[in-house]
């Protein structure tokens, strides 16, 4: 695989091939293809932007652990271009949004796609500028801050436009913040997994690449599990307590029937009730098995949650879903592997 990836232009060919396959699958007029692509896009964009945001957040506060995985985390930057392409593939699907065809300023198809695309491309540009800066250079923090700013807007738009407007006029002001915090949470989970893949079972000590770095990452995941739970509670308690029909319907549609009800509970477990107790003990924070289990739980939780958000209003095609996820996974692994080998 190393020799294959070493060849010039292989990555570009891989990107083009994956893009072409996903375009072929998505543009076929079968019901569920668009929904599958949307789910893949939502998960993928959260993880990719979250990885870069984790590196950027670490850079702004001089976090020591970033040095161990910085290159791999930033290697996913080109995938933001793939995400932009996926957004373009979603254009036909936008017609199935409930507001489509009605007059409006904000919810108008061209502006809808245009602003999301603009911020994805801006995220790519700012991420590239951040990735190009030396890890300990003078302007790195400024570039990281710029990326984080664009990341917040981009994730908020993803939440408000691609998810919330699916159930227009349902409104939750917290959804944007919920999405970017969750993306960052996912970014830390990927960082922990990459760290373990790169360093295996790290030795004890305080030098870079030691158990202390893994412990710092675990503390971040632990802290974010609490923060995620707080946001989850704040969002859904307010909606449930208010009991306004147009708001509470969002929860009712998801908890009133199987299997979504069970999946809702699974989300809670995967994103809070598993990582929180697992990472509570000091020793567990530097145990590779516990940390990798917690990180996988977090990533699965994000995926299941995105599914739960879409499921009541969007149709999925299992075949298209499998192809989309397989393509994106291959691309993700390829760019990270290449960055690792040619470190």
């Amino acid at each position, binding site marked *: 695989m190393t020799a294959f990836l070493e060849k010039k232009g292989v990555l570009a060919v891989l990107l083009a091939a994956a893009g072409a396959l996903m375009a072929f699958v998505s543009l076929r007029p079968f019901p569920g293809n668009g929904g599958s692509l949307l789910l893949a896009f939502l998960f993928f964009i959260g993880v990719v932007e979250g990885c870069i945001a984790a590196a950027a957040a670490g850079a702004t506060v001089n976090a020591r652990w970033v040095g161990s995985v910085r290159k791999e985390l930033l290697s996913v930057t080109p995938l933001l271009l793939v995400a932009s392409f996926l957004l373009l593939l979603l254009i036909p699907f936008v017609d199935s949004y409930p507001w489509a065809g009605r007059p409006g300023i*904000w*919810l108008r198809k061209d502006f809808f796609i245009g602003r999301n695309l603009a911020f994805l491309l801006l995220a790519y540009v700012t991420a590239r500028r951040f990735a190009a800066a030396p890890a300990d250079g003078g302007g790195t923090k400024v570039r990281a801050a710029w990326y984080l*700013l664009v990341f*917040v807007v981009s994730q*908020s738009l993803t939440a*408000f436009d691609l998810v919330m407007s699916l159930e227009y*006029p349902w*409104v*939750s*002001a*917290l*959804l*944007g*913040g919920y999405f970017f915090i969750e993306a960052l949470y996912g970014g830390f989970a990927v960082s922990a997994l990459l760290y373990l893949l790169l360093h295996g079972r790290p030795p004890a000590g305080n030098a870079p690449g030691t158990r202390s770095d893994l412990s710092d990452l675990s503390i971040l995941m632990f802290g974010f599990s*609490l*923060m995620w739970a*707080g*946001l989850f509670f*704040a*969002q859904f*308690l*307010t*909606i449930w*307590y*208010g009991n*306004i029909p147009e708001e509470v319907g969002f929860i009712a549609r998801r908890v009133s029937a199987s299997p979504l009800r069970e999946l809702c509970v699974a989300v809670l477990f995967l994103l809070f009730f598993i990582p929180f107790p697992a990472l509570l003990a000091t020793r567990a924070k530097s145990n590779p098995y516990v940390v990798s289990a917690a990180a996988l739980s977090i990533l699965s939780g994000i995926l299941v949650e995105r599914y739960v958000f879409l499921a009541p209003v969007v149709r999925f095609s299992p075949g298209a879903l499998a192809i989309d996820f397989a393509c994106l996974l291959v691309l993700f692994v390829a760019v990270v592997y290449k960055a690792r080998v040619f470190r």
Partner: protein
Amino acid sequence: MGNAERYAKADRDILAAMEKPGRAYLAGLAFTATLTVIGGILWIYQIRNGLGVAGYTHPVNWAIYITNFVFWVGIAHSGTLISAVLYLFRARYRTSFNRAAEAMTVFALMVAGLFPLIHLGRSWVFYYLLPYPNQRQLWVNFRSPLIWDVFAVGTYFTVSLVFFYVGMIPDFAIARRCKEGIRKRFYQVLSLGWKGTEREWRHYGMLYLFLAAFATPLVASVHSVVSWDFAMSVVPGWHTTIFAPYFVAGAIFSGTAMVITLVIPLRKAMNLHEYITDDHFESIAKIMLFTSLIVSYAYIVEFGLAWYGGNVFETGAFRYRALGDFRYLTWAMIFCNSLVPLSLFVKRLRRNTTCLLVVSLLVNVGMWLERFVIIVASLAHDYDPYVWGTYSPTYVEVGISLGSFGMFFTLYLLFVKNLPVLSITEIKEHL
């Protein structure tokens, strides 16, 4: 200079702040105490004459008193948060601010706790809020966010007080050694017989870490509960899911501003430039800038989604906020909280204490206005045009509010002359 000499110098410098007060201090204390007394007299006047002396008119029955409650709870919340979070993150500049921040928390909570009582009118029936055992089996409404407030703020006050006190025990032992007479006995009692043995330090470290770890999520949860006093109701402009994190960020923002407001004059008056440096101010200014961005994000999202959702009541409430009777306050709030802090992107301004003091004062004003606008403007303009109204405060409300500031600063001035204003033992760790 050897370690022993440096440590002795730190003891002398920090404890020197507790020496005999000067004229400026006494004048300041007299002024703040007078404000407190005026506030107290006006409260008695309100109790004698009833809530009619306040400017409450239908539909605005929550106004300045609740604004003050939320404002002071917000100030209180960031004190422990700054201290506890920076401790958990091992930030070295924490030592310059933690004691001031913790003291601020305790005093602000004491002031905040008075406002629900003042707002009650018949303050003596405050025990209705408590779930006390009684013969008629009458319980408080546990589903009311106001009751959640009682539990949340009560727990937070207890933890903050313990956190504040525990952090000072080793410093009390130093003060006990350095002071004479009745003050020596005072610190002897407070230091709980601290000897500074290895075992004591180990237990102290564990307890302090535990309290810091416990206080951090508690802060977020408590201010979330305060935000739910509003968000759980279905009043347009109040019922929004973003309120909890928005209020938490706002609390850290206003509290950071208040810490800067308190510590800049403290550094100058007590000549503590060696221990509270411009680097430290720059670091805390970054926190203020960061939280300002979060608060600005919340403003944009709130206004944006009111327009996006197209709900006539929600849109109407936000249009009223921006263009109605309280428009000047709304725009002043945006100016103070979102625009002025942007100046802190410039490194030179972050390191300039005069600029920082001006920004922090404006943020304090802006955050008070934010709470006022949220509370009053939303109530004045809810669903039914028939009951729309407006509100203007009376001299009783203004006087009681100024009295609350007087009380806070009186307590703070008493603190700086009677307790160590910086954590001596932690400063020694970094010498």
